């Protein structure tokens, strides 16, 4: 016997019924489970996704984006499943305040992703060459193994410091273009030597065009930097719930 459970896609700022045309995982009808003035967007689920296919992840995302057209949504992590409707309502009751605060803050806003790749390896090499492998400021006197070790480490430290300063200068250039049109931002800097910036910006709907234009402007003067622009996405990176409140 197949055990039915409840698959949850997101929390919305609406308690209204959906029209039943939206289909979720396993082609099940997506519906809204109201709690006070908010709702959990769910579908019935037979409890098994094996193997997890890319199409399932895309379907989850597709449902959230579809709901985003009409409501503010707090996207829930892929494969979040409750045993029965009653459990969903208990969760909604316990976390209602946190959900409301986030829904209010994220209303009419969407997330955009910006990734920038630069020639980090080459830039570091150039910095290293300019030091000619001989950083002596301040000098470490003596030639014991420990002093030689410290001298070598200090050289690398200075090269890295210059590398990070160069990276920060470029990131500031990108961010100066974009942040004036964003309500919030999250910047991940130098995730790898070449991935200079992996950023998420939360943008108000009526500023999306300006945000896109700012990115295009940056792109035109970005020189050898390569860029990736994505969105609008559900605000995955801007939901602030205490750990105990995570769905």
């Amino acid at each position, binding site marked *: 016997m197949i055990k039915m459970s409840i698959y949850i896609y997101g929390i919305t700022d609406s308690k209204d019924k959906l029209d039943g045309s939206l289909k979720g995982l396993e082609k099940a009808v997506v519906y809204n489970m109201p709690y006070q003035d908010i709702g959990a967007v769910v579908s019935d689920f037979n409890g098994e996704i094996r193997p997890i296919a890319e199409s399932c992840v*895309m379907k989850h995302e597709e449902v959230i*984006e579809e709901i985003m057209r009409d409501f503010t949504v707090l996207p829930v992590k892929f494969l979040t499943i409750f045993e029965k409707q009653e459990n969903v309502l208990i969760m909604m009751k316990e976390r209602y305040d946190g959900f409301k605060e986030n829904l209010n803050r994220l209303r009419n806003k969407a997330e955009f992703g910006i*990734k920038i*790749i630069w020639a980090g390896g080459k830039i570091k090499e150039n910095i290293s060459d300019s030091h000619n492998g001989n950083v002596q400021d*301040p000098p*470490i*006197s*003596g030639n*014991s*193994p*420990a*002093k030689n*070790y*410290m001298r070598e*480490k*200090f050289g690398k*430290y*200075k090269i890295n410091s210059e590398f990070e300063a160069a990276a920060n200068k470029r990131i500031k250039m990108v961010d100066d273009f974009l942040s004036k049109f964003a309500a919030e931002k*999250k910047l*991940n800097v130098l*995730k*790898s030597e*070449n*991935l200079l910036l992996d950023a998420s910006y939360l943008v108000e709907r009526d500023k999306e065009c300006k945000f896109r234009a700012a990115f295009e402007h940056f792109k035109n003067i970005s020189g050898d930097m*390569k*860029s*990736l*622009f*994505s*969105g*609008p*996405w559900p605000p995955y*990176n801007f939901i602030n719930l205490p750990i105990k409140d995570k769905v």
Partner: protein
Amino acid sequence: MTMDEKVLTDSAPVFIEEIEKLQEVIPRKINADPKNVEKGVAKLVLTLIELVRKLLEKQAMKRVEGGSLSDDDVERIGETLMKLEKKMFELKGIFGLEDEELNLNLGPLGDLL
């Protein structure tokens, strides 16, 4: 809006390669397979030790830069850091771990190292 319209770049292969490289290096979960559990735990412990070692090293370099260390201090700290690095090298060898593997993805907080 399709995925193609949502992701705009003129350098897709470069980004795919870079992101795949990052995902290979930094798994989101500790490997708790019974056959590899020892390596998984070692990886976690060594990552934390590496974090502390890097912090100590950075602090030491800042003090060298600031000129606040005497010759004896530099000698003593250098010897300590050198021994610590040597021990880490040995431990990584025992568990078959590479430098790039010593990291943890902390979700919304980013990567540990």
